[in-house]
Structures are given as structure tokens and as C-alpha cells.
């Protein structure tokens, strides 16, 4: 069996869906952050898969460079998000997202 674009996209979609599910179901902010990371990785796999098998397969570097950028930005985003979570923890003594309801109308 040759591994084709279909397999890769299935893995990608699975990772993304697991990420969304985690994001929606977990109340713990850190777990939600980890879910977002899963979604990133799902997207990354899709990018790399299109780079390898897509229309532009002659120049695969474009999509791969894009994936590298996503990894970089994700790392930076984690730094910011964790710092925010730390501040939120100091303020509320918890990281449960449903406790952060000061904007409730």
C-alpha cells in the first residue's frame, strides 16, 4: 500500500477534530491550549501533504516553509498564552476557563 495524500489528510483531519473536541470539551485552560497545539499540528500535516502531493509538487519547499513558520509562530504563541494563563491564575487562583466570566453580559 502506497501512502498517498488521502491517508495524510485523514490523519490531519483526525488531529484537527481531536483538537477542536478538546478545545470545546475541556474546562482547563492548559488542556485547551494543548488542544489548540493539536489543531496546529493537524494543519501542519495538511500543509506538508499538499506540498508533497498537491498541484505545486514540483516546488514542495513553499508548503514546507509554511509549515515551519506555523511551528515557529505556535512556539511564540505558547509563550504568550502561558504568560497570560499565569497572570489569570494569579488573579483568579484557578485555570478553569468557565471561572473567567467577568465579561458576561
Amino acid at each position, binding site marked *: 500500500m502506497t501512502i498517498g495524500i488521502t491517508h495524510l489528510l485523514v490523519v490531519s483531519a483526525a488531529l484537527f477534530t481531536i483538537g477542536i473536541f478538546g478545545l*470545546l470539551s475541556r474546562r482547563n485552560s492548559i488542556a*485547551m491550549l494543548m488542544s489548540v497545539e493539536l489543531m496546529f499540528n493537524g494543519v501542519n500535516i495538511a500543509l506538508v501533504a499538499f506540498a508533497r502531493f498537491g498541484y505545486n509538487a514540483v516546488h514542495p519547499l513553499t508548503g514546507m516553509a509554511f509549515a515551519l513558520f506555523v511551528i515557529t509562530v505556535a512556539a511564540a504563541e505558547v509563550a504568550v498564552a502561558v504568560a497570560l494563563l499565569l497572570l489569570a491564575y494569579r488573579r483568579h487562583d484557578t485555570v478553569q476557563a*468557565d471561572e473567567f466570566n467577568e465579561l*458576561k453580559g
Partner: protein
Amino acid sequence: MYNLTWAIVLAPLGAAMMAYLPETPRRAAYITILGTAASLVLSIIVLVYRLGHIDNNPYQALITFWTIQPVGQVGPGFVADFHPQVGILVDGLSAAIMPVVALVSLLVQVYSLGYMRGDAGYRRFFATISLFTFAMLGLVASPNFFIFYFMWEGVGVCSYLLIGHWWQKPEAAAAAKKAFLVTRIGDLGLLLAIIFGFSKFAAHVASLPGTPGQEVNDPFNFYLLADEWHKAHAGLVPGVGTRTLVILAVLVLIGAIGKSAQLPLSTWLPDAMEGPTPISALIHAATMVAAGVYLLARTYPLFLEAPHVLTAVAIIGAATAVYGAVVALAHTDIKRIIAYSTISHLGLMFTALGVGAYSAAVFHLFTHAWFKALLFLAAGSVIKAYGTQDIREMGGAWRRMRTTSWAMLFGVCSAAGVIFFAGFWSKDSIVNGILRNEFPNGGHVSGAVKGLLIVAVSVVSLLGAMYPFRMFFKVFGGEPARRRGFRPERVRDSGPSMLIPSVILAALSLIAGFVGIEGARYTFAKFVHAAGQNVNEGFAFGGVLLGGSLALLGVGIAYLVYGRHVPVLEAVRERMAALGRVAAEGFYLDAAYAWAVDRLVVRPAALFPRIDTEVTDAVADGAVQSAGAAALTVRRLQSGRLQLYTLRAVVGVGLLAVGVTLAATGHFPGVGGSR
């Protein structure tokens, strides 16, 4: 030479602007006095030059500085004809009046140096007087209705500011407001006259051959319009008939009535006494109220083409003259006595204009300026010395204030028309005018009206001699009434800055009348008449006999009643006390206005707030409530739960993705996919 008129008009304006530069208010006063003095000197030069060229042609000198052109390209017609000229007009009338305005203003300012000493608004006072002088000089020298109306309103604003000079006093603020609003009624008449006249005459004026030396035919120009009115009366102007002329004349007359405080718009002038006394002198002698008479003199050719309106002018004037004289005889406030005296004298001027005695009206305006300014300035000195305005509390000023007393005596004699004083000559030339009853274009008022006017002017001659002397005997004769905090031995004459103007005016009150003697009188009439008018006014003995003897009789009666307190006459006076109380209230004209305004304006107006509360507010409240209800529903969406928000975002993106996919694959008609 006539270019000097620019400086005459603009010097007081410059002084008013510069009054705020110097460090002390005193120096500000010196600046405005200097500016007005410059105006006076130049206006005398222009007058003398003009007198030397009395037979010159053209009769008037129009000097244009700027012709206002309609903005942009417009087709022929209404707007394209709108090009009023900013400029000055020098003719006999303006050349004769400008020195009067400048001199009265100058003397009033010198007087105010002493009178207003220590006042908090000293600088503001002098700056506004200077601005007032500018507005009046500009009005006198205005070549057309356009500039005239600007200056007319400027005069109104300045009098508002000066009557309300002591604005902290509620009465002064109310009086200023009243003066402004009542004269507004007249202003509206004048404005309508200008607009209506423009709409009727602009096209025809534009079609005339050009005026020599001017870029355009100014559709507001007094002299061009005088020709137009004349032609319109002969039916030579398309679309304009005699009815238009009558409407125009009535509108102009309304303007003059408001400004010159004639019946029924006379109520603002007595209240204007709340202002400082020098301001009363200025308003009554040279500026403001004179503007109404001046307007009638300027537009006299229009009235000659509408003779019935001219009769109305005479009747209104005569009624006002009698009214003012009766009220002045009954009043006890020295300033209001003089104010009603002004109303009476302005009524005489209207009467003179109404019977065609044009130059007599201008002559009376000229002499009235001196003795009325004098009466107010002298009264101001007395008020300052006695600390009251009630003549019943005064008395004995003759021994204590000798110079002021002499000055006041001259003013009173002139106002009463005692023989050889200025008022005698001018009042009697008005009586002559009524007896002659001939318009410059040959018309006349009807015989019945003439009889009425003779009766009225006789009454005014008699009463007009009685009330000044009543005031004089009460204030200067006898002894002051005892009051708390008043010490008669401390009453003494004012300082030189207040006495010198009074003395100059006293001299003028005597000699100014000699313009009226045989020969000079004819020259004066010819000088102030518009070109082409038939000058038929000269010296005559009929009026002298009638007016002069009645004036002397009035003085005699006043002496017997108020000077000697003859018992029989005292008894008569007691009988008349009830009438006196009614008259002192101005025959309840104010109360009538208050009642009418309450019934016709205030009460109907009270209905309008109900529209506000019951319609507008209901709509607004309903809108607010429905918005609130909607907000209560919508706010549930803002649950504050992060997962819910995320879910919505995901569902939204999902729906968008499905939609885009469907569109891209051609499932929506006309969108995408067709490629």
C-alpha cells in the same frame, strides 16, 4: 474732498478697536475721545466744503469702495442683479447730520469721563460708545439700503449694549432686552421693505444706462431708487404700480416707528432710562432714535409717491407728540420726563414730514439734538448730586448747582420753544409747515387732517412748554425733601469734565436756532433737500405767532402752578391727580402689551410643551424601552463561557466552509462554479 468721509466714519471704529490696547481705562477713554474728535473736525470740513458747493451738479457724491458681485456665473435675473456697493454718500442731508452726531458723541464722552469715574465697565463703556458713533455715522453716510441696514442693526446692538451697561441690575438687563426686541419689530419692517423693493426694482435698475463713474447700477442706491419710485408712480416701471409703492412705504414706516419710538412701539424708550445717563443723551440726541427720522428723510421720495402713507405719518406723529407731552407732564422720574419729551419731539418731526415740511423735520432733528443732549447731561449732574431720580425728592438745586442750573435753564427754554431759543425756531417751522400743508411735489394732506394736526400741535406747544418748566421748578426751586441718608448741604456742582459739555450744549441750544432766521432758513432747506425737489420752505410768521405765544403761555402756567403754587391752580391740579396717575403709567401701554403678549403669545405657546411631553417624549421613551427589551434578550448570548464562544466560531467557520464549497462546485445559481 469727499473722500474725507471715509475717515469720518471709520475713525470711531478704529478708536473702538484700540480702546482695549492701553493699560488704563482712562487712556482708553482718551483714545475714543480722540477718534470722535477727529470725526468731528473732518465732518465740519466736509460740511463747510459742501456748503461752498451747494449749487454743484451732481448734487450728491457717491464714493464706492467695493462692489459686491454675485458669486459664480449666474444667468440674468434676480440673483445676477444683486450687487450692492460698499461706499459712502455725501449730500446735503448726510453732511448736515454727521457733525451733529460727532459733536454730541464727543461731548457725551467728555462728560462720561467724570460721570462714569470708578465704574467697573469704564473701558467697555467708551469702546461701545465709539462703536455706536461709528454705526450712526455709517448709517448717515450710507449710500444704499444695504449698508444702511447693516448700520441700522449696528445702532440697535450698540444701544442694547449700552442700555444694559449695568447688566447686573435686573431692570437694566430687562430694559436692554425690551429695547432690542421692540425695535426688532420695526427692523423686520425695514428688512421686508428692502427685500420687497429689491425684488420689484432690481431688474429694471439693472437695465438702466450706467451711472457715471460706477461699475454697476446699485439696486439699493437711494438716489437711483428715488428715480425709480418716481417712474413707478407714472407707470414706467414694468410690474410695479402704486400699490407696490404703498406697501413699500408702509414697511419703511414700520421700521422708522420702531426705531424712533413712535406709537404704538414707543414703550422701549422710557425703559431705556435704566442705562447710564450719558447714554440716554446719546441715544436721544444723535443716535438710535434719530435713525428713524433719518430713514424717513432718506426715503422721502418714496413717501411723496404714496401720499396716503404720508398722511398716516403725520397722524401717527401728532398722536405720539400729544401722548409724549401728556405723560411727560405727569411723570415724576426726571429721566423718564425727558424720555417722554423725546418721544413727543420725534412725533413732531414725523408730523412735519407728514405734511411735507421736510426741511423743518431735519431742522428740528438738528436743534433737538443739542437741547436734548443738554437736558440729559444736566439731569445726570443733578441725579449724581441728589442720589435720586424722583423730582419730588429734589429741589433747591438753583442755589447749590449754579452752572448746571443755568445750563438746564437754557435746555428747558429751548425744549419749551421759548422765543429766540433753538427749539423755538424749529418747532415753529414745523407749525408753519402744517399751516402751509404742501408737499415738495405739490400734494397735501386733506383739510380735516390738517385741522386735526393744528389742534394737536397747539396742544403740544402748550404742554411742551409746561412739562420742562414743571421739571425745572420742582428740581431747582423750593427745597429738597427730607430723606434718610441725604444731606442737602453736601449737594454741589459737578467737576469740569461734566460741566464743560453742558455749557457748550447750552450755547448751542441758543445759537443753533439762528439757522432758522429769514434767509438762512431757505439755505438750510435747499441744502438738505434732495436734488430736484421743490424747496418751498422758508421763514413765516404764522407759525411763530401760534407756536411762540402758546409756548410762552405754557411757561407762564407752569410758573404759576409749580413755581408760585397759586392756590386756585393748585386746586385744579389736585382735581387732575387721577388723570395724572394714569398718564404717569404711560396710559397703561406697557400693561396692554403685557396682556396682549400673554393672551396671544404666551398662552398659545404653552400648548406646544404638551406636544413635546405627550408626543415627542412618548416616541423617544418607547424607542428606549423597546431597545432595552431587545437588549435583555440579546444579552443571554453573552454567557461568558469560553467554550460556547469557541463552539459558535467553529460552527460559523464550518457553515462558511460548506457554503464556499457548495458555491465553488456550482450549487448556487450564478455564483462560482460556472468556470
